[in-house]
């Protein structure tokens, strides 16, 4: 497939599944087709199920936000193929640095769905234990985590992790088209390139950075950014789960084999709002939305599965039931997540190693909470530190 940029220049884009769900056999894509062909019908059904459940998660979270149960939510609608396809190529030992919209990736990594909403609920800090699923926390200051991914990858390298297609360790970082303008992201690629760090830069070009179109961020197709830093770089049809899977698997294997970083641009679309506090009708046309609705990644995989006899009403019903269960789990689970923590708990995690000043501050807030504040924070400092001395 080729897509065009504003100047109608054709841009090579890997596609293995067309928008109607037919397998595409373009010349030069044999390696990728072979990777996709290795996916069994069961694998494809699994991908489909996970994409549908990701969308269900999105819908449930959006309505929880509408009901005032979440402070904010950033939907991933439209990006399910990019997220689920790339996450299927990961192995458990690989490490993920997401931005803030990667609900499909988190789903495939096996993170508890309620934990994935803690952060948006504001029930406490963070939300999940990164080491449990080798999946780091969300980062909202745009692009910063691409450097963390690079540093983690350099650490993997330093550990002397074996170079093996399957048993090596790769790192992947997800970021958006807007993020490509940040210095951090560009510096991350410099570092990764000169150090041969085992990291995959996975760009989801969803066409928008809040209200800004990609024309505000770039004059060249974004995959060329990676190329300029010396990274093997590829644009894939981000709504084609097979192409995303094959391209990501190739890049991850390169990393696990010690052959350095890669860059993938998944060309996709943010079908929903930027977040629940955004209204996209203010800055984009319904024609554009309609055009991308016809390229819906879930419909596309459904069409393939149906034509290959892998999707029937029973399976749809099964997924629907699973979605209902997920919905109930989220509604109950999210409402049950409640703060109610003592005010002084805000001091719990400020430092990994507690110290005197922190103890003083905590003691003062505890006294304050109890309605018995000492005249000055220093009054308590004197006694607390006096005691310690």
């Amino acid at each position: 497939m080729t897509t065009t940029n504003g100047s109608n220049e054709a841009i090579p884009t890997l596609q293995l599944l067309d928008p109607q769900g037919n397998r595409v056999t373009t010349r030069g894509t044999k390696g990728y087709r072979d990777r996709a062909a290795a996916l069994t019908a069961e694998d494809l059904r699994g991908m489909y199920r996970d994409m549908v459940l990701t969308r269900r998660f999105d819908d449930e979270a959006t309505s929880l936000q509408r009901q005032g149960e979440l402070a904010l939510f950033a939907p991933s609608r439209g990006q399910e193929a990019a997220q689920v396809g790339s996450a299927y190529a990961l192995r458990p030992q690989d490490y993920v640095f997401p931005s803030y919209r990667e609900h499909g990736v988190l789903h495939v990594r096996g993170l508890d769905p309620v934990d994935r909403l803690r952060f948006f609920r504001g029930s406490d800090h963070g939300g999940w234990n990164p080491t449990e699923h080798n999946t780091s926390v969300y980062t909202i200051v745009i692009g910063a985590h691409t450097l963390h991914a690079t540093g983690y990858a350099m650490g993997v390298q330093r550990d002397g992790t074996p170079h093996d297609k399957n048993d090596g360790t790769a790192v992947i970082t997800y970021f958006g088209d807007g993020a490509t303008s940040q210095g951090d992201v560009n510096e991350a690629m410099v570092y990764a390139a000169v150090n041969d760090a085992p990291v995959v830069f996975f760009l989801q070009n969803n066409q928008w950075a809040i209200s800004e179109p990609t024309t505000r961020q770039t004059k060249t197709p974004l995959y060329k950014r990676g190329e300029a830093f010396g990274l093997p770089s590829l644009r894939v049809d981000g709504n084609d789960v097979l192409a995303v899977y094959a391209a990501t698997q190739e890049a991850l294997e390169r990393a696990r084999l010690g052959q350095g970083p890669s860059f993938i641009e998944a060309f996709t679309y943010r079908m929903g709002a930027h977040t629940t506090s955004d209204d996209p009708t203010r800055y984009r046309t319904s024609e554009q939305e309609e055009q991308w609705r016809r390229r819906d990644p879930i419909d596309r995989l459904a069409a393939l599965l149906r034509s290959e006899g892998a999707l029937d009403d029973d399976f749809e019903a099964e997924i629907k039931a699973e979605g209902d269960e997920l919905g109930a789990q989220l509604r109950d689970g999210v409402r049950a997540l409640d703060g109610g923590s003592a005010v002084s708990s805000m001091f719990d995690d400020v430092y990994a190693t507690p110290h005197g000043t922190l103890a003083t501050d905590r003691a003062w807030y505890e006294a304050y909470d109890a309605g018995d504040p000492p005249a000055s924070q220093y009054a308590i400092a004197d006694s607390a530190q006096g005691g310690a001395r």
Partner: protein
Amino acid sequence: MSVITYRQALHDTLRAELARDDNVFLMGEEIGLFEGSYKITAGLLDEFGPRRVRDTPIAEEGFTGAAIGAAMLGLRPVVEIMTINFSLLALDQIVNHAAKIHGMFGGQLAVPMVIRTPGGGGQQLGASHSQNIELYYSFVPGLKVVAPSTPADAKALLLAAIRDDDPVLFLENLALYNTKGEVPADCAPATIGKAHISREGEDLTLIGYSRMAHVARQVAEELADSEGLDIEVVDLRSLRPLDRDTVIASVRKTGAAVVLEDDWLTYGIGAEIAASISDGAFDHLDAPVRRVAMAEVPLPYAKSLETAALPSHDDVVTAVHETLAAVGRRR
């Protein structure tokens, strides 16, 4: 004289300055088509076109640095950084370049730019999106930092900032955008570096800026009504230059001071004010200077903890009571 919001005052001033001086132009993320994250620039792209109102890539250091270059040419860029938190990405450009170009090169080149940016917690935006870090800029010679608390000051200080030949960080506040106040139609530019006594009183001086000056006025009025207290309120308005004289004169008169700030206590702006009072009004003090500030934690996301961590109206009342109790013991 009309009663308008702080947001409207900022908008009207930008609009008037764009109309007045072709050298003035705006730059920032989403300020054009989207009209700004907080809608300060609503309608300005339509009215003035993309030559004057420029949407930028998501690159804070990039557009801040570019604004410095444009200012060196004699233009008057007004950049908007979505929130002060993201100004951290532009720290090198602001601190090492905007603040130093004039001084380091013998005054050959001025950098007449404005960085408009809101601070403020309390919106459940998480620790990295809720900071009050104006102190970082107030610390730096070569920069000016202003922090209006009323619509009238928003206008007068923004006029002054745009016309000033030095780089000015113009601090807005998320919690103030919808507050209302009277703004004179023929509002003149403020003098940057002058504090304002927004309420005269004899019993105690409350000192604040931005949101906390607003809280100070509320508390002073309430305590006047409920307890007959006569509290003076000093609204700093400018953090650098800092109007120590007004602060000291007030405390010499009242003999007691409570300093309010929305940032962290340790090394905060309140510490600087308290030191100034100690220097200039020590013999007049009848009680130790108290500070009300935020808990020393990254601001929690959970609503109840966020509220507890931020300095509140009640915290100010408590500090006033305790300070006056200390005064009573002394006098």
